[in-house]
């Protein structure tokens, strides 16, 4: 069995062993407790010229990765919390995402920006965000949100080997999830579609990242109540091919989107809109709904925090409401 965290480490090892143009740059890489068990030993195994720890300069580090990528490198940039990647938004959104479309010369920016979602633990408002929807708004970026150990490994590899700029958001709440992994295969990131992780008849639950694990837990609980829920994991949230989602909702007639971000202009709303605009009203048996964070910044206090994050029980109550 391989955990999600170990799968990320395995992806790094695979890439560094098999692709000489790959290197890793970011903060904390020579003291990798910053990133859980996902980078243990890489600096000693591959050397500090290839696993590059940096000054406290998110923007310059990210920009340097963009420049290296334009000149033939395949950098992985590590932002141990997505909150800090906000400091580098110009390089990701204005530069990397637009390079192909600004110049039209066929050159993308093959850099992968790994921005870790690191919630809970009383870390408070600036250490706990899930800002994936920002990146999903931007043409030119490809955005990966792995929910499973297999995707954590194989989509990281696919993202690094993509010729486009990629934002990869792994979630520390997923790190202990484990499964048997087959040998690595190099996938084409552009071909990755949402995947049904569970088949059901009564409702379609659509989620991404850790929310997919919540959805699976809630679906299992619902099953005990006689409600059969399918769970679709988006996997790649930009660009998204919604066809598998639309097909499934057409079958179940009900839709619940679960997302770890806020509702306003977020992924859950995008799921609802993208499905609803493809269906006839009569194809829906209930109003689609979404479960997201409350519209507030994350608190630090433990009791407040416990109420703040969606739980499997909350998702279950949403399932009951939609199906009833």
């Amino acid at each position, binding site marked *: 069995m391989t955990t999600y965290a170990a799968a990320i480490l395995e992806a790094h090892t695979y890439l560094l062993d098999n692709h000489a143009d790959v*290197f890793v740059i970011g903060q904390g890489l020579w003291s990798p407790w910053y990133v859980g068990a996902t980078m243990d030993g890489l600096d000693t195994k591959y050397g500090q*010229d290839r696993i*590059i720890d*940096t*000054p406290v*300069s998110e*923007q*310059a*580090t*990210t*920009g*340097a*990765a*963009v*420049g*290296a*990528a*334009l*000149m*033939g*490198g395949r*950098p992985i940039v590590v932002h141990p919390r997505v909150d800090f990647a906000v400091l580098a938004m*110009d*390089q990701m959104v*204005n*530069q990397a995402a637009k*390079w*192909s*479309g*600004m*110049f*039209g*010369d*066929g*050159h*993308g920016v*093959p850099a992968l920006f790994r921005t870790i979602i690191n919630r809970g633990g009383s870390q408070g408002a600036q250490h706990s965000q899930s800002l994936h929807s920002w990146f999903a708004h931007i*043409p*030119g970026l*490809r955005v990966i949100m792995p929910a499973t150990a297999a995707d954590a490994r194989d989509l990281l590899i696919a993202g690094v080997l993509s*010729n*486009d700029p990629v934002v990869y958001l792994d979630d520390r709440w997923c790190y202990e999830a484990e499964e048997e992994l087959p040998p690595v295969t190099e996938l084409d990131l*552009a071909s990755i579609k949402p995947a049904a992780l569970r088949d059901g008849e009564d409702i379609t639950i659509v989620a991404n990242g850790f929310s997919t694990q919540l959805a699976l837990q809630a679906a299992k609980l619902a099953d005990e109540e006689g409600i059969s829920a399918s769970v679709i994991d988006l996997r790649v949230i930009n660009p998204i091919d919604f066809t598998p989602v639309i097909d499934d909702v057409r079958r179940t007639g009900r839709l619940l989107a679960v997302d770890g971000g806020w509702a306003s202009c977020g992924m859950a709303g995008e799921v609802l809109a993208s499905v609803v605009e493809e269906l006839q009203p009569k194809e829906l048996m209930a109003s689609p709904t979404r479960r997201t964070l409350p519209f507030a910044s994350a608190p630090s206090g433990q009791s407040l925090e416990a109420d703040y994050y969606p739980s499997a029980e909350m998702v279950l109550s949403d399932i009951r409401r939609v199906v009833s």
Partner: protein
Amino acid sequence: MPEGRSLPLSNSDYFDPDWAFTDVDTTGLESTLVRDWYEKMVIVRKTEQKIAALVETGEAICPCHLAIGQEAVPVGLSHLLTPSDAVFGAHRSHAHFLALGGSIHQLFAEILGKSSGCSHGLGGSMHLTDRSIGFIGSVPIVGATIPIATGAGLQAKREGKGNVAVSYFGDGATEEGVFHESLNLSSVHDLPVVYVCENNLYSSHMYITQRQPELSTTRYAKAHGIDSAIVDGNDVAAVSKAAHELIDQARQTGRPGYLEAVTYRWLGHVGHRSDVDVGVKRTGDLEKWRKRDPIARLASTLEVSVTDEINDSVATAVDSALDLARLDPSPEGDLVQNTVYAR
């Protein structure tokens, strides 16, 4: 001198519009190099004058930031580079592109939004590229290409072939945080990047002492442990000499360098006019700076017959390039959707 804070003692007279500037010293230089510098500067000047005319008539719509008066900086530097080096510019980069040998026709076509443009009509004046000459790209977010050039230096270091990266920016960009982050990064990681600050004393309408406590920006290089030089940016030979030392050092030792070329833009921040630019009134200074014209100063070292011939041939080439660009087709409509992701 425009109003603002009282001037500190500068480390150079270069900033003083009343400075009695010196002759361009071409002693010991190959005559073909000097002739080539002159021709390149005239190409930049005449092409930009034509672009100004296109802006004035409305034929060019996209924002055009012209570098008339600043030609000596990229022309003095570009002959030291090869297409394997990586050069990055900013919003005012026609001169950077042309000095490296970029096509006048492709530049006009880009500004007119034609498919034959250097960026296929997607970019306009502010997004130029031509990898065949080592000009990787220019963008108008101030300071944004400074870390990107730094990363090109990182990749050059990783490849170990002695290539360098060049980052052009203005004095305004040194007020961006990422400029300082980038200098620090290249210094601690020994990256072969030459930072070229074209200090033209203005950021948009703001004179430098309204924005910074000193006129020269070389103090930032010193703060980050990077070797620097300051030169009269309107003296092509002086630019070349200083750039040569810094580029050679970057190639041989991998250390970054910082070149500040003091110059002056004759036109406003954007567009074709010199007399009105978001409140700038600087007529007296401009007249003094026009006497420091980098082209006229180099012309004085050449035979009149030589400069006349170059002036005529460049004028013809610029006219033909524009005629050609005007006839070129617009891009196909699906180009926008087809270039969101890499091919």
